[in-house]
């Protein structure tokens, strides 16, 4: 079933602009429901993974983010798609999938397990695109590419294909919540033709604006988005909805998720603490027994015989902890960024006002 795992040989991701648009279109159409879909592309030998096509998954199983890839009908869809694309003359293969999400909410078992499966069984260069659709409202295009680190995959394989990581495994493989998932640099690639086209479009729009001396746009600062949408040309380059000072309202959602994650974290930590207490109790018993054995002068192997008499509790997996920590960290990063950009906006307004 599983091929020999070789380390991924691509370090950056180049994505065609049409792919970006398709992902954005799919995600914004269904927002806030998370969506996902397969990515087709090619890993070249120049350390670049080229993503040339994106498709929406036909079956959306996103009550759990990252689940769609697992659904049988979707897997068949991907298979059929790659076949037909090959016939149509595209040199592409399945290279991963995209997911829309809110902040770091994508970090869960399904996503990681699926990514693990794809990286081991499919293509070591498989990637996960995460598109934060909630940021679109703030005027920010967020598309990130992730891959599980080599150490993580190796640890998983060496551990008998199990994610029950003990602390020893984590330390041996130098894994922590910050490095088990690697973010790859992602670049939008425009073909010459497309940049020609886009620049032409840009010129045309700029002409329109110069002609109008931009007054209309200033007025639009406070009008709602609908109005701006009616003036299609306006929206393309100038949309100031994102500059409204409302970034913190959206943060409520992230904060709620953050609080949930922290609850999960504490639950996991309690389990772990329970284990530690059990362990130290058992260890104390073992010590006692060793002392006694020494005093009695019985011929016993002090280092090994106790193992048949006492059973130490098994160490709980640190895997959950890893995931939850990572998502907490992700939520915090997003909140932090949100705050900083909010401050930037606030001080701009204040600066204008004080004058």
């Amino acid at each position, binding site marked *: 079933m599983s091929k020999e795992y070789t380390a991924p040989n691509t370090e950056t991701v180049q994505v065609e602009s049409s792919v970006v648009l398709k992902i954005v279109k799919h995600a914004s159409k269904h927002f806030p429901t998370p969506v996902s879909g397969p990515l087709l592309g090619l890993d070249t030998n120049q350390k670049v993974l080229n993503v040339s096509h994106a498709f929406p998954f*036909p079956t959306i199983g996103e009550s759990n983010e990252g689940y769609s890839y697992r659904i049988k009908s979707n897997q068949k869809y991907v298979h059929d798609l790659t076949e037909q694309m090959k016939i149509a003359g*595209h040199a592409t293969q399945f290279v991963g999938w995209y997911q829309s999400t809110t902040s770091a909410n994508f970090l869960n078992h399904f996503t990681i397990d699926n990514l693990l499966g794809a990286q081991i069984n499919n293509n070591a260069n498989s990637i996960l695109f995460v598109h934060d659709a909630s940021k679109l409202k703030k005027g920010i295009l967020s598309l990130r590419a992730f891959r599980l680190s080599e150490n993580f995959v190796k640890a998983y394989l060496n551990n008998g294909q199990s994610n029950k990581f003990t602390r020893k495994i984590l330390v041996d493989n130098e894994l922590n919540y910050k490095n088990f998932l690697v973010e790859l640099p992602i670049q939008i690639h425009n073909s010459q033709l497309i940049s020609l*086209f886009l620049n032409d479009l840009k010129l045309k729009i700029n002409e329109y604006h110069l002609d109008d001396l*931009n007054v209309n746009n200033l007025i639009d600062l406070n009008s709602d988005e609908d109005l701006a949408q009616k003036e299609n040309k306006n929206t393309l380059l100038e949309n100031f909805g994102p500059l409204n000072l409302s970034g913190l309202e959206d943060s409520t959602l992230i904060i709620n998720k953050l609080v949930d994650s922290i609850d999960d974290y504490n639950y996991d930590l309690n389990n772990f603490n329970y284990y530690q207490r059990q362990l130290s109790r058992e260890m104390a018993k073992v010590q006692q027994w060793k002392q006694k054995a020494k005093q009695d002068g019985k011929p016993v192997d002090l280092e090994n015989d106790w193992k048949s008499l006492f059973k130490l509790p098994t160490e709980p997996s640190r895997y959950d902890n890893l995931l939850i920590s990572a998502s907490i960290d992700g939520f915090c990063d997003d909140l932090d960024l949100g705050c900083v950009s909010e401050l930037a906006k606030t001080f701009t307004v204040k600066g204008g006002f004080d004058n």
Partner: protein
Amino acid sequence: MSEEILNLVRPNIATPIANASVSAFSVNPLTVKIQSPALLSILESSLRSEDNIRTIGALLGTRSDDGSELEIHDSYIIPHEEKDDEVTIDEHNHKSLFQLYRRSNPKNQIIGWFQTSNSLDTVTSLVHDFFNSADGTFPHAAVHLTLQSRDQDNNAIIPIVNTFVSTSVGSGNAESGSNSLFTQIPYEITYTSAESLALNQSMNSGEANLIDLHKSYNDLVQVEQNLAKVNKLLDANITYVEKILAGEIEVDGKVDKIGKFLISNLLLFSSNYEGFNSNFNNYIQDTLMIEYLVSSIKTQIELSAKLTTIV
């Protein structure tokens, strides 16, 4: 009164192929809307056409109830071969791809086809007939989109997109093939605000046509870009007002707009400057508070991870 007027009617969909089955054809002029993701993928398709061999493909989308409005949502390439005046289309591949596209977006129908060449020749008519048939858009008329990316001397040019519908002329004998008359129809490119945002990002490319998205401070860069834009607009407006004051430009309706804007927004603030100011400061304090709490959570998580891995 006796001026001669030539009245040209824009083509409408009232060129039915099978008028019996469709009751109400619209007499409104036909309009085509191309969604920007579809347009970009068509543009990308043209990169695949090798020396003077065009690429053809299907256009997927929806039509309005009366058939007068077409919206192109997606497209895919269909393999084909040209030999003199004959053309073979990989029908099987076309059908399978269509079914696959349809599965994730059931509303999409085939509404026409595109080619990456601007020549309307025999092959065009043949392929067009194919798309007008039962495997294509039947009983509706197919739309044809051409994309020209090179001029006669084979130099790259700014891509030109045109859309057409065809009318059968002559005896209607399909054997001769080239009995279609193509009429150009207007089209429009549409963007949603989300798509325009993505397009906007794509436009910011440097020399290598690559845009980095990965930087962790990318969000801030985008905010900065937006703020810089506002700055520019404000400057433009100030210049405009100054010019009016200096009498260089005549007063027109735009001044009213600016005036209204000032009155409705700015005066409101200045009448209650103190209140506004304190609210504003509170807001800043709140933001800073969140930032502080968030960073302390981050530190705790990091500390916790460090401590638990000490074996």
